[in-house]
Each structure stands twice: as structure tokens, then as C-alpha cells.
């Protein structure tokens, strides 16, 4: 069992948790992910590592409540235990001094892009960061991202904070203004955002790394549910990734695979809400 040490509510639907998991923290590096399972009945869900402290033996995760499991996770509090916490999984980000790099984080993707930007900065890169979300209340870690960036841009779809634009707008401007000098781009966020980032960087021929979060079960190469089509054939996100050359990803296939369990996700949420209401009714009734 793994203890939740700390919890921060970053927005209505975005939560941060610090988990005591020394066996994961000892080896964790930027770009890797963990698998968490809340309890006996829970499903195994992959979450990218937002931060880690090998001395303290802790891993920080940030998640958006989009399905039943993340909603359930969001109701837990410090002191509560998680049944499973496995990792670190996947390959770490390749960090070296590339020169000038751009790090793009969209929505909950800001969390995993932060340790990458930090590591790139420490390696001597000039780091330009762009973070974005639908609206102000979905943004977080603005200060942290700014502190590891040489140049920093904030966008919201509705203009409630920063510039009213998509992350691809400042990205295109940067690539245009610094033609030939941007060595690499990282993009982490919703699949559709990553797709458009790769479309934006393609004409400039700038290598673009995306971190994919697909449906998976074990996270160790066993189920193959996470497979993604690249130019060279199918790869497993869990063991071959999670980072891939975004220009090689078949986004249509990826987006369609992400939708496959949508009906079941709704059913799970309904079941869980009903169950929660029942429990609440029983507790309230007993008062």
C-alpha cells in the first residue's frame, strides 16, 4: 500500500498528489510514468510523473478527473492508501544540450512537461515554454514553468488568462521568428493538441517529441492495448515510449483508439456516482 502524503486542488477537476513510493522514486526520471490502482476493484491507470524526490521517496502526480478512476482518486485525502503504485515505466526523456528548445504543455499536460523543461534548462538549453488550457481555472504551475524558462507564453482558449489563442499560435510565431535555431519541440497535452503541434512544426522540419497517454493495462508490454501506429509499424507506448517522434504518429488511429471505451467509461461513472450517493444516503440516514 502506498500513502498519499499531500493533496492540492489545482482546479475543480485537476488535483495534485504526493505519493510515498520509494521503489519508484529511487529510479524515476523526467518523461516516465507510473501505473496506479486505487483498490481491489480499481483499474490500472497510467499517469505521467509530474515530479519526484528520490531522497524523500516520493512521486508527484497530477491528474484531471475525466473518468471514474480519476474521479475516485480525486476524492481521496492525505493519509489514504493506494493499492498499487508501479514504476517508473517507459523510457525517460533524452536530455542533452540541444541549444534552443520549445516545451508545450496543454491542460493537465503541463504537469509532465515541467520536469522535462527543468531538466532541459539544467542541461544548458535555452528553454521557451508555452502553456495553455481552455480557461484560467484549468491552468496551474505557471510560476514553476516560468522559473525554468528563458521565454514564457500563456494561452487560454477563452482569453480568461494570458493570450486568447491556441498553443500553436505562439509556437508558429517562434518558429517563424527563429527560423533554423529551434532544435527540438516537446508537446504534451490532449492528443488533438499534440496532433496540431506536430502539424505546426512539420513545415519547419523541427523534430517534435510527443508523450502519448493511451489506454493500457499492465504498462510493461504485456497487453499491447497501448499500441500506436508509426510510419515504421505498430509500437507499444508503455515500453517503446511514452515519447515518440510526433511526425511519425498516425493521429487518426490514435484518436479513434482513445474513444473505444467511451460508452463503458460513462457506465462506470454512472455506477460509481450511484454507489457514492447510496453510501452518502446510508451515512446521512444514520445520523
Amino acid at each position, binding site marked *: 500500500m502506498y500513502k498519499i502524503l499531500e493533496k492540492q486542488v489545482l482546479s475543480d477537476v485537476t488535483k495534485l498528489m504526493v505519493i510515498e513510493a520509494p521503489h519508484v522514486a529511487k529510479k524515476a526520471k523526467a518523461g516516465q510514468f507510473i501505473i496506479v490502482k486505487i483498490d481491489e476493484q480499481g483499474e490500472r491507470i497510467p499517469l505521467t510523473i509530474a515530479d519526484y524526490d528520490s531522497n524523500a521517496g516520493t512521486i508527484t502526480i497530477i491528474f484531471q478527473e475525466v473518468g471514474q478512476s480519476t474521479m475516485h482518486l480525486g476524492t481521496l485525502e492525505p493519509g489514504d492508501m493506494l493499492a498499487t503504485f*508501479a514504476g517508473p*515505466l517507459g523510457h525517460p526523456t533524452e536530455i542533452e544540450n540541444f541549444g534552443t528548445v520549445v516545451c508545450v504543455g496543454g491542460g493537465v499536460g503541463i504537469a509532465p512537461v515541467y520536469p522535462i523543461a527543468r531538466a532541459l534548462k539544467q542541461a544548458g538549453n535555452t528553454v521557451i515554454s508555452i502553456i495553455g488550457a481552455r480557461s484560467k481555472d484549468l491552468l496551474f504551475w505557471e510560476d514553476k514553468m516560468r522559473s525554468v524558462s528563458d521565454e514564457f507564453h500563456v494561452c487560454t482558449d477563452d482569453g480568461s488568462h494570458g493570450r486568447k489563442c491556441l498553443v500553436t499560435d505562439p509556437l508558429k510565431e517562434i518558429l517563424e521568428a527563429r527560423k533554423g535555431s529551434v532544435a527540438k519541440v516537446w508537446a504534451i497535452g490532449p492528443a488533438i493538441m499534440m496532433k496540431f503541434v506536430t502539424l505546426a512544426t512539420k513545415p519547419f522540419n523541427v523534430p517534435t517529441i510527443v508523450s502519448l497517454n493511451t489506454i493500457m*493495462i499492465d504498462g510493461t508490454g*504485456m497487453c499491447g*492495448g497501448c499500441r500506436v501506429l508509426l510510419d515504421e509499424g505498430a509500437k507499444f507506448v508503455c515500453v517503446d515510449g511514452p515519447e515518440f517522434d510526433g511526425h511519425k504518429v498516425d493521429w487518426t488511429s490514435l484518436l*479513434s*483508439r482513445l474513444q*473505444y471505451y467511451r460508452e463503458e467509461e460513462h457506465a*462506470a461513472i454512472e455506477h460509481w456516482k450511484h454507489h457514492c450517493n447510496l453510501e452518502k444516503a446510508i451515512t446521512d440516514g444514520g445520523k
Partner: protein
Amino acid sequence: MAKLDPKERMKIPRQPMPNQDAVIRSGNFEEVALGYTEETMRKEAERCLQCKKPACVEGCPVGVLIPQFILALREGNMTKAVEAMKVKNNLPAICGRVCPQEVQCEGKCIVGKKGEPVAIGRLERYVGDFELAHRTCPLAAAPATGKKIAVVGTGPAGLTCAVDMAREGHKVTMFESLHGAGGVLVYGIPEFRLPKGVVFGEINYAVDCLGIDIKTDHVVGRSVSLNELLGEYDAVFLGTGAGLPSFMRIPGINLNGVMSANEFLTRVNLMKGYLFPEYSTPVKTGKRVAVVGAGNVAMDAARCSARMQALQAKQTNGDKGEVHIVYRRSKDEIPARGEEVHHAEEEGIIFDLLTNPIEILGDSTGKVVGIRCIRMELGEPDASGRRKPVAIEGSEFEMEMDTVIMALGTSPNPLVFVDADGLERTKYGTAVADTTTGRTRKQRVWAGGDVVTGAATVISAMGAGKRAAADMHKFLKGEAPW
């Protein structure tokens, strides 16, 4: 019963295994084979001739003391039967259920030369189940040696090696990447063939009776590497199995509705997807399922699919649907255990033999709608000794399907080879290890089971775990230097 002579023993008919009715069982996940009663057990035990040179034992990969345990059963001495069993076999309740006895012990049984062989597997299961129900911790551990052993993987190879080493007095720690121990016994083999309560019972023997420590959620190669383990432990056994699924290289493999048997079985078994939404992991089983392949895993996937369809039909009051096994060879070449094929047929699985998929067809949303196949005929024997299937030109046809499950074999997971310099691999990705000792090319590292052989059986993995433990023990005593 009065003492019988061999002729009389030969006259006793082989006692049938009571099974759940085929129609009822194909709608639930409860165990199919119900087990002998004490009476049928006694009758079956009387059939054994107690051969001086027992051929059955030669047929067993772990050399179970078969005549001894059957004699104890006949005498009604269960304590003695359990002890005789546990000398060689740590997991009798599992082996009795999943071993291919027809090609092992029972295949060699002298009684079987003239009639039907003694049902050694069913008797073994009886002993195993008795031990689970009356845990007595037979064969306790020797005094502590002070040596520390790491066993990577908690499947049949690892469990066997761990238990044998613990019995010798070594301190054993097991590493498991998933959230529960048991490996393929838990994620792969379905509940109705091997109840998880039985697996956990056998694992608890390792933990409760022998003090073995199991570290779950530890992915060797990621959380900790082989080289790091060697810094902390005197010897390491790798029993990491063959967990990597293979997909056919045909168009349409990434469509929604195509999955590996590993994924499907893991969702159903390990994650208990058949209890969704009480358990959170969903399983999507369509009305028309094609399982490609005809090994034990394919039979498991097909039979699980039929059960999922039945559960869904019950909820929606709809019709059940169909499950097809699509196999490119003929019935004679089917690699699955005979009983599994028989059970699958009884449960209504349709066998499309001499049929090979060449394309998976999808709709505009990326979902499977069918498979295009080609008819095959058998040609000359290939390297495996089986007649090679050859496509019949112009025989392509389409079948409507909404789910395609690939059960085409598995290969070892390469993660364990990370930071493990000197651990050699074959071109098939299997670890190079000596077949009699289990020694790899890396000092103080042994390996056995599917990680060495590629996908095989539970009992052959156990045999490898046993041989490795014997050699590892000798090495640690200084009797067999590297």
C-alpha cells in the same frame, strides 16, 4: 476395500470427472471440472498397479512420486499423500488442473496401454485441494543458511524455485511487476479452468509456511535492475515468462476491436472485467468474435468470449452471438490440451480450420467489421514436424466480425535484460540458459520457464524452476562452482 489383483484393478473403469453442465457453465465463470468425491477418488486410486518401474514418473517434468501418493490415497492416509506429493510438487492443486497429463504421466501409464490410464491428474488435484483446505505446512524449511535469493517473476517457474530454495533454508524474496502474485496463473488462465482462490492458496503456502517475501509492483528492469539485485542477493532466478504478445503483420491490426489474447484475458481474469462495473476495468466482447490461433490461450480466450457474450445477452435480453476459432492448420495439429478443445466444442465454439486471416476490415470510424481469410491446405512437414499450411490460391472470402483476438503465441519481455550485461539472448528474445542446471551466461543468474523456452506449459516451467533451484543450492553450498 479388499486387496485386488492387477486384473481386477484393470477392470475398474476410469472414474469420470463431474463437470458443470455445458449450457449452464458457458454463462458463468465458475469452475468447469468439479473434482472427485472421496468415493470416486478411492475407486480411481484402486486402478493404479503400483508398477515397480513407474513409467508415469518418467513422464512427469518434476518427477512427482506418483505411486507413493496414490498408495497413500488408497490407504486413506491423506497426511502421507500430501507429504508424498509435496516432495516434488509445490503446486498440486494447480498442476492437477492445468497439466497436459495425456502427453505426460497419463500418456505413459501402463494401465493406459490396454484401457484408459489412471486419472493421475484428477487424483493430484484431490490431494492439492485437500492440502489447501487443511493447511498443515508439510515439509518445513531447513535451518537458515544466511543466503539471500531473489526470484524475479511469481509464475509457476518462480514459485517452484522459490519454494524449493526456501525449504533449503535460504531467505527468498520474489519480485512481481503486477499488483498480485501468480503470473500467468492469474492474468492468463481463466477462473473457470483454474480458480484464483486455488492459486492464492498455493501462493500462501510459500508466504505463510516458508516465509517467502513477495514484492509486488516491482518491475525488474525499471524499478530495480538485475545488476542491482546481484549487489544485494547471493543468487537470482529469472522466471519472467513470455508475456509479450505477437500480432499478425496484416492490414487492419490497429483497428478498434482487435486485441491480443493477453489484453483480453488480462481484462477478464486479472482485472475481473466480467464483474464490470463493480470492478472498474471494462471488457468489450462483441457479438461476433474471431480468435486467431488454436493453443491453450486461444481456447481460454474463446471460452471467455462465449461467457462474456452470455452475460451481456442476459443483461440486454439479446441473442448471445458467435465465437470462432480461426486456425490455419487442421484439427490434428491443434496444439491445445485435448480437454480444452473438447470443452470449447461443448460450449458451442465454432472451429474454422484450415483458414488464415489476411486482412482485418474496418469501417470509417476505425472499428472492426470483418476479416478477410484465405483457405489453406496441408503440405510437407515443416521444422516443427507439423505439416505446413499452404494457401489455396483464389480461395479468399470474408467473415463478418466485430472483435478479433490474436492468440498467436508470446515472447519474453525484454525489460529484464535492461542493465543486465552478460545475460545472453537468442534471436527469439529468450534467455540463454543450460537446460539441466538453468545457469545463464551471467554469473549467479539462473533462468527457467517460458523466458528460456518461449511459451510452453505450467508444468515444464515448474520443472525448470526445480532444476535451477537444485543447482543454485549446490552452488551456494560450494559444491558446484560456476
